[in-house]
């Protein structure tokens, strides 16, 4: 399995500012994923982050708005830039790793609850 921590756990931010969310994993993983969960909605994949290469963004998400860093195999950051109230969501970090089943499984961090005023 994988133990994932995120910082901050929650934050309240002003419109127009930026917030960087950190994700730390207790073991080395090849790929990390960032999801967004808007209030009352499902999880939507923002991007996939490989160590040593540019993140791959899903349709509707762009690097200028959600820059991602992946400096090593246990850490990643997601920045929410120039925030607006529509960015109020839970942001979740996730990793894929071989689980007890012997197959790749996906593990999730506790999430960062962001409120933009």
């Amino acid at each position, binding site marked *: 399995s994988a133990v994932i921590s995120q910082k901050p756990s929650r934050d309240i931010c002003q419109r127009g500012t930026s917030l960087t969310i950190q994700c730390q994993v207790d073991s080395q993983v090849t790929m990390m994923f960032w999801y967004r969960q808007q209030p009352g909605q499902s*999880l939507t994949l923002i991007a996939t982050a490989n160590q040593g290469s540019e993140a791959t963004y899903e349709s509707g998400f762009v690097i200028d708005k959600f820059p991602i860093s992946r400096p090593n195999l246990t850490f990643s950051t997601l920045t929410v830039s120039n925030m607006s109230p529509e960015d109020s969501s839970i942001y979740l970090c996730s990793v894929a790793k071989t689980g007890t089943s012997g*197959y790749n499984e*996906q593990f*999730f961090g506790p999430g960062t609850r962001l409120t933009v005023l």
Partner: protein
Amino acid sequence: AQSVAQPEDQVNVAEGNPLTVKCTYSVSGNPYLFWYVQYPNRGLQFLLKYITGDNLVKGSYGFEAEFNKSQTSFHLKKPSALVSDSALYFCAVRDSGHAGNTPLVFGKGTRLSVIA
């Protein structure tokens, strides 16, 4: 492309009665299927998964799910619901045919309300 459908936004059930939360999926290859639960103001918790083997999968908190390939379904069930089961439930899928670490695709979620 992979997709998951959870046809019910809300499921209401009386405490002690059996519950079912529906999920159907679409993948090009064989599916890896998952159920997660999210309690209010809490993170996403893993319930159970189907990777291969027995179609009936047992998971946490007395939940189980049955993989039905012909109907492309993976409904979540529990024989006797508890008020504490009230939460938001997500079905997710990944195509086993994809190499490497492709991410899960989630359904829109079903809110389960168990009434005492």
